[in-house]
């Protein structure tokens, strides 16, 4: 053998007793991908926060209080309060729900649609490819935000519509990447072998082409998660996203960025940290998942 293969199973069994169990496997993977584990913990932590926001938040996130307006961190409000005197920590905790719902929802929706369009386009070619690619050209000519704006404005402000509005501009990017990968993969001998076996075209596309396009897709999706959260901020800022008084990280950031960055910086810093952690966690997790799913990359 030219290169000594790393026997995943053997390494697993070497790692000690109990490795056969699910927990043992997870521990083994966590040890192999410490950064991925950090990402997973971050991400799960934020998800947990979002899901159990009602229990975790120390105060009501929408209750205003004129007396504590723009109060600094410490004291009554651990992370301070915004100009309406709402507790920043509670708002961040509740914001996790909306921001993650928007980020994950639009990324998953956009990627799924993009994969379907890109795979069909690259595999079927012909007129279908021609037409979809021209539509994608038109969509890509518009900036992401502008398109999301148009979508959001026509759909009206609500959580579902925001998710849809942010996911649609993502479709052309994903479709392009998947299509270009499909174009090269469909000429591979293993695809030809599948044809020689008598496999249906759909099965070839789904079983043999699609799994091999996963790596760039995961990178794209994790990168997109952050931008989706920020796009939601812009939409909300313009009154087209999640309606007030619901908290979302993006809007907390964008609302206070211009006015209060000097006088009350905690209003900018803490939501900013929350967004960074989510994006950072998703990127770390995405990289690890990409490696774990690729048999060639496993270590």
């Amino acid at each position, binding site marked *: *053998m*030219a290169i000594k*293969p*790393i*026997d995943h*199973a053997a390494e697993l069994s070497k790692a000690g007793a109990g490795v056969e169990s699910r927990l043992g496997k997870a521990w083994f993977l966590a040890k192999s991908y410490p950064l991925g584990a950090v990402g997973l913990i971050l991400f799960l932590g934020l998800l947990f926060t979002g899901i159990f926001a009602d229990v975790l938040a120390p105060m009501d996130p929408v209750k205003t209080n004129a007396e504590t307006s723009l109060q600094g961190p410490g004291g009554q409000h651990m992370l301070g309060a915004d100009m309406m005197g709402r507790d920043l920590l509670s708002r961040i905790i509740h914001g996790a729900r909306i921001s993650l719902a928007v980020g994950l929802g639009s990324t998953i929706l956009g990627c799924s649609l993009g994969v379907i369009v890109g795979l069909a386009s690259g595999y079927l070619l012909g007129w279908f490819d021609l037409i979809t690619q021209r539509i994608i050209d038109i969509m890509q000519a518009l900036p992401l935000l502008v398109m999301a704006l148009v979508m959001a404005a026509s759909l009206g402000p609500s959580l579902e519509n925001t998710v849809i509005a942010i996911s649609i501009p993502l479709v052309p990017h994903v479709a392009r990447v998947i299509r270009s990968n499909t174009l090269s993969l469909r000429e*591979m*001998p*293993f695809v*030809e*072998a*599948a*044809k*020689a*076996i*008598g*496999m249906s075209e759909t*099965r070839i596309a789904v079983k*043999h082409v699609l*799994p*091999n396009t996963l790596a760039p897709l995961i990178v794209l999706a994790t990168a997109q998660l952050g931008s989706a959260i920020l796009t939601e901020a812009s939409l909300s800022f313009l009154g087209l996203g999640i309606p007030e008084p619901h908290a979302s990280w993006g809007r907390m950031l964008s609302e206070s960025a211009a006015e209060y960055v000097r006088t009350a910086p905690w209003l900018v810093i803490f939501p900013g940290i929350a967004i960074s952690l989510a994006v950072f966690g998703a990127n770390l997790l995405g990289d690890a998942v990409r490696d774990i799913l*690729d*048999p*060639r990359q496993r270590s």
Partner: protein
Amino acid sequence: MAEVASKGAPNASSDEPVLEVENLKKHFPIQSGVLKRTTGHVYAVDGVSFAIGEGRTLGLVGESGCGKSTVGRTAMRLLEPTDGSIKLSGVDVTHLSKKELRPYRRQMQIIFQDPFSSLNPRMTAGEIVKEPLYIHDIGDNKSRQEMTKALFDRVGLRQAQMNNYPHQFSGGQRQRIGIARALSLNPKLIVGDEPVSALDVSIQAQVINLMMDLQEEMNVAYLFIAHDLAVVEHISDDVAVMYLGRIVEFADKKTLFTNPQHPYTEALLSAAPIPDPTVRRDKVILQGDVPSPINPPKGCHFHTRCPYATDQCRIEEPVLKDLGGGHTVACHLR
């Protein structure tokens, strides 16, 4: 595997050749401009006929770009033939639709040249070999697993390796996986598209010997495409020499290697090294390059490089002449 054999596609009588190809043509259109108008054709395969009997091996040789791989792929209907007919055990499969063709796919399989790109990197070796059984709905999950194990044994891989991924195998082992995949459907014909060209010489011998053993065991016929004459001489019963999309000479192995009649075959044979430094011989060295298959020369395709070319060769296309004993040659001078 008996189960596999009993569920095959409708069979014709057994004395029919496993594969019979007649006047096969494959022209690739050249499209240019915005409107994708066809401005010409690549005459990759231009009227090729041959037949392979049960359990026999036909070696197809020729230099790069002569269309030998295209012959293999077109005969398998992986490429649509422009003209001609393909008969599998007497059944004409030239114009069958994809769906109609499916049962016949079991009778013909292919092994590829590149052992690295011919296996899906995201499937385990076991899954790769098992998949054809699943597609053709052979056996249940358990029996498919057993068949896969048997196939691994048969091609000289350990059963424990079924859970490994292609990148964990060496080139030769991967080629064995490719062979196991081709064998899983118990085909009557396997097209080997330069199956050993990408391997080390020592591994080549192993794979060739494996293929020959399997032929003996399973009575499978091979269309063995190669450019290495030594390999072809070792494995083939008959040999066809191709030049620029046409077969120029066809004979049984012994006749072709001892008594080549076509000037191109002569040149090809003299270019093959003899593993004995003391042997001296007259080499026929060809001048020039292979002409473009987009615009092949008139008359005999070989006349531009043939040392014996006459005026007749430049005008008139030679047909395959029978020299007796199944030895045919396309040359005006014979």
